[in-house]
């Protein structure tokens, strides 16, 4: 039986700007996914624990504070060490263009900047994780 994709939407660090995180959490939910929104003020440990405990397929990180390099590196490394399966990590928020290849090198699959339609992000996640939704 097909199970819905499980998505964790997380706000790492001290950044409180959560308009984008809430919008994308709602869009994932409206698209039939199971969404766990962590709320703000999350440490790397808290985020990774949520992903593991919730058996999430996707982690969406929203960050607008400029601390994206730090958290992309830490979260991706910690997920590789702790998550039983390959979790799709996507990032949204404000990143200088030069930093995008750097967070991708850490393991972020895609970065969605300001103005991206939510449908585009939903479609991307579905395309990348469709096989995961149907366990053999």
């Amino acid at each position, binding site marked *: 039986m097909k199970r819905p994709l499980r998505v964790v939407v997380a706000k790492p*660090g001290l*950044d*409180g700007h959560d*308009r984008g995180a809430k919008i994308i959490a709602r869009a994932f939910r409206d698209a039939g996914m199971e969404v766990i929104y962590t*709320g703000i003020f999350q440490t790397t440990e808290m985020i990774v624990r949520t992903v593991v405990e919730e058996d999430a397929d996707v982690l969406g990180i929203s960050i607008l504070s400029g*601390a994206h390099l730090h*958290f992309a590196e830490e979260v991706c490394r910690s997920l590789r060490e702790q998550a039983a399966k390959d979790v799709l990590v996507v990032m949204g928020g404000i990143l200088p263009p030069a930093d995008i290849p750097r967070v991708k090198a850490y393991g972020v699959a895609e970065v969605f900047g300001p*103005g991206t339609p939510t449908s585009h992000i939903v479609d991307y996640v579905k395309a990348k994780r469709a096989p995961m939704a149907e366990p053999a």
Partner: protein
Amino acid sequence: MVDSASESKSAGGMSPDQNTWKETTLAASLKKMPAREETFTTLSGLPINELYCATGTPDPAIGFPGEYPYTRGVHPTMYRARPWTIRQVAGFGTAEDTNGRYKYLLAHGETGLSTDFDLPTLLGYDSDHPVAVPEIGKIGVAVDTVEDVRLLMADIPLDQVSTSYTINASAFVLMGMYEVVAKAQGVRKELITGTIQNDILKEYTAQNEYIYPPAQAVRLVVDTMEYAAKMMPRYNPVSVSGYHIREAGSTAVQELAFTLAGAHCYVTEAVKRGLEADFVAPRVSFFWDIHNDFFEEICKLRAARRLWARMMREWVGAKDPRSWTMRAHSQTAGVSLTAQQPDNNIARTAIQALAAILGGTQSLHTNSKDEAYQIPSEGAIKIAVRTQQILALENRVADVVDPLGGSYYVEALTDRLEQEAETLIRQILDRGGMVASIEDGFIQRQIADASAAYQHALEAKKEFIVGVNVQVEPEAALPFEPFVLDPGLGERQIKRTQSIRKSRPQAEVGSALKEIEQAATGGQNVMPAVVRAIKAQATVGEMCDVLRRVFGEYRAPLVY
């Protein structure tokens, strides 16, 4: 962020006609502060009067500028006596970095200062706290001790340049630091001007930089209001902010309602403590977001003035006309800036700035075109300042008071916004007030719904953003230099703080921190103890930690 005290018209009455207004309210104001020019003319030389209005007695809902209910402006002369203050917010890196930016801004014609603090400072963590390290100096300036504030304000004469601090949860500490530094500069307490945002309620509904539970945090705000009214009578200890509410996705009506309801909460809590409304209300100031709907934004400021005047006079019973005036700082809408085709942001910002001025703001921040990406570069911030100068000096929009007053559309829209906002405020009061409506997520839910509805409208192309969902172009290289922070700034900041922690008078620090704890536990005003701790070079984190132990930390309901 608000600069001149409003005219305190003795009777607080309303003039029956323009001649009476001219001979009483206007004459009294001109005596204190004359007009910039003897006569004002259009570019072609035609005369511009100080005010245009209907003959006879005006509609009492509209009235005259500088008179209750202040629909047409808080001052009788508005910008004919003194233009709005050009106040660009700035903050990054260490205190020295931001001080350098201040000097750049003042050299290019800015007339007031405004500070953004970094996330650790906003949340009451010292720079060497583990959660602070990745965020030091990134979205604002790092402040740990009073020494940082001294360096931040170095060579800025605090009796001449008013400064605004954008800080909330830890505002009680930064207000104390500002007072200590101003007095060390030799400024008498009567001359200390400036503003601190200190509007904690909107942190729970919109910006999310809170520490303590809402009720205890409101108590801290009232502590600062009481302390400032005694110790710095010209200082604005709270700037109640619709800006963040709107940026979080609210409508204009919600922005009006949640902001005025917040301000009402602070004043009524002060009254519950036994303070007179007229002791604290005159120094309550406001901060609005100026978004893309040109006329709605103008009418929003007019409606805010009228509704606040009525709330203070009729609901709260304030008698001093200065308690009735809604003095405002405005900022063009950051959320309206696009990362795509960023040069278009110059046009957006100019039009929003015009709306703020036609709405009668007291001071204004214009966003820079590159702010969808980064802390503004010097070149971009200069265009933003020049935009305000063009409006003031070339476009002549500062030469007549409330030029849109009497327009059928503007008056009707002002009325409608006021009515809708009042209904929502009464709903909040009926539900038990702002704190109760935050604790159960009522306000957050309204904002989240409005934000989602707008996003749906954008994706369905019922609303348009040029360059984003219409007139889209392939991505081009950014037409500005990236803003790069010094990678060594965190280390420099931590070193300074740790060296101060070693060299300061330890016994005095410990005793002052204990006094903060006793005041907080015993229900006394914490500010005298906070100022004592600041003078002993206690850190932001140490002072906030004391109250964390007494008040606890807030866990917000998750609403999306």
